[in-house]
């Protein structure tokens, strides 16, 4: 039941890391190739099924986090607050999450209302962030979700966003990928 030497080393490094670690840095740290590290990460991911831990990643940055099922106990221990968002804020968050990178004007065009307020709310809760400016007239900011967003919603990656069917039941795949 032992795991590969590289997986154990990667696990130890991720355990002490204060923030997500890129696969390249993991490779450098444990003295292995990025391909081997990729396999080690897959091994850990599988290993953590059914345990109190899981592997979370955004692009190629990785971190060990607690399993969402254990949230009540961990929140009790940490004295953490429950996240609460209004329907309006959730709608804006949904547009940003599934359509990122997205500008404020695009969010407003989809929701049909002014979104200044909800965008500020989501930014001050660190759920979304400005990614940079789009090369377009007016150079508007583009927004995307943050690492905290994945953590707050218990998603291991953006690919784990819930699949929601549109009313016709077919255009379900436009998330993220566009």
């Amino acid at each position, binding site marked *: 039941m032992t795991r590969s030497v590289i997986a154990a080393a990667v696990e130890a490094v991720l355990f002490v890391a204060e923030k997500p670690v890129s696969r390249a840095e993991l490779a450098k740290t444990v003295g292995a190739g990025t391909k081997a590290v990729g396999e080690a990460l897959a091994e850990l991911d599988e290993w953590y099924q059914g345990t109190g831990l899981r592997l979370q990643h955004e692009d190629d940055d990785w971190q060990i986090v607690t399993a969402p099922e254990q949230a009540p106990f961990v929140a009790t221990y940490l004295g953490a607050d429950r996240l609460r968002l209004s329907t309006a804020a959730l709608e804006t968050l949904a547009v940003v999450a599934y359509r990122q990178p997205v500008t404020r004007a695009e969010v407003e065009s989809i929701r049909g209302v002014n979104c200044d*307020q909800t965008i500020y709310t989501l930014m001050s809760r660190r759920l979304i962030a400005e990614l940079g400016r789009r090369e377009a007239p007016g150079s508007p900011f583009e927004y995307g979700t943050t690492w905290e967003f994945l953590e707050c919603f218990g998603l291991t990656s953006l690919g784990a966003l819930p699949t929601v069917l549109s009313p016709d039941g077919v255009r379900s795949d436009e998330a993220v990928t566009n």
Partner: protein
Amino acid sequence: MPVGPRPPDVAVAGFEGPLDLLLELVEEKRLDIFTVPLGELADEYLARVRAMDRLPADEVSAFLYIASRLVLLKARSLLPSLSPTAEEDEVDTEEELRLRLIEYATTKGRAAALGDRMRAGERAFHREGGTVELPPKGGDPDVLAAAWLKVLSLTRRTEEAVEVPGERYSVEQRTVEIEALIAEQPSATFATLLGDRPTLGYAIVTFIALLDLYRRLVIDITQDELFGEIRVERKVRRMEGLSE
């Protein structure tokens, strides 16, 4: 819960916005979003807008935009000769509005899915890495300064965001006013109805009121030339018993 100012998320009379209201009408009537002629919803849409007690001035224009498109779609279905101009055709088709509605419905579904996750509270937690014994080194003061700037900017924006425009008009009240005026004098111009230096909110509410009066056959609206004066006239009621 974060301490500090909490910006209100204003829902307009129970709706998150004009598309939300339109979607609600479709769902309430159990209509098929893909086939229902949207123009058929114009009357009900206007009625619901009229019933709203107070509309925040900064959201009224969005409601007006949807309302005017619905009225146009209805007019075309009643009068096939009212074919769209080439210009309108590009931006103002029923199909485009329908696609927006479908996309908004999808967004609402996604928001609900995220909301379910949020309410279930099944979130992950990371370690802050506090077990490290080595003395820290290699901090970058500029990175620290950047973090401070970010905190400052988030705090500041939240404070600004709390300001809410105070000016509000009621469509219902304005409709009553115009109806009374038109009962006394047979006609008026849009400009006189607006008065001197109207605010945007006042102009929009006045315009919605006119659309509503027009829908209820209280007034006729004419405009002799492009950008010309819009005339509002008391509608000549036909004798009872005669069909329209």
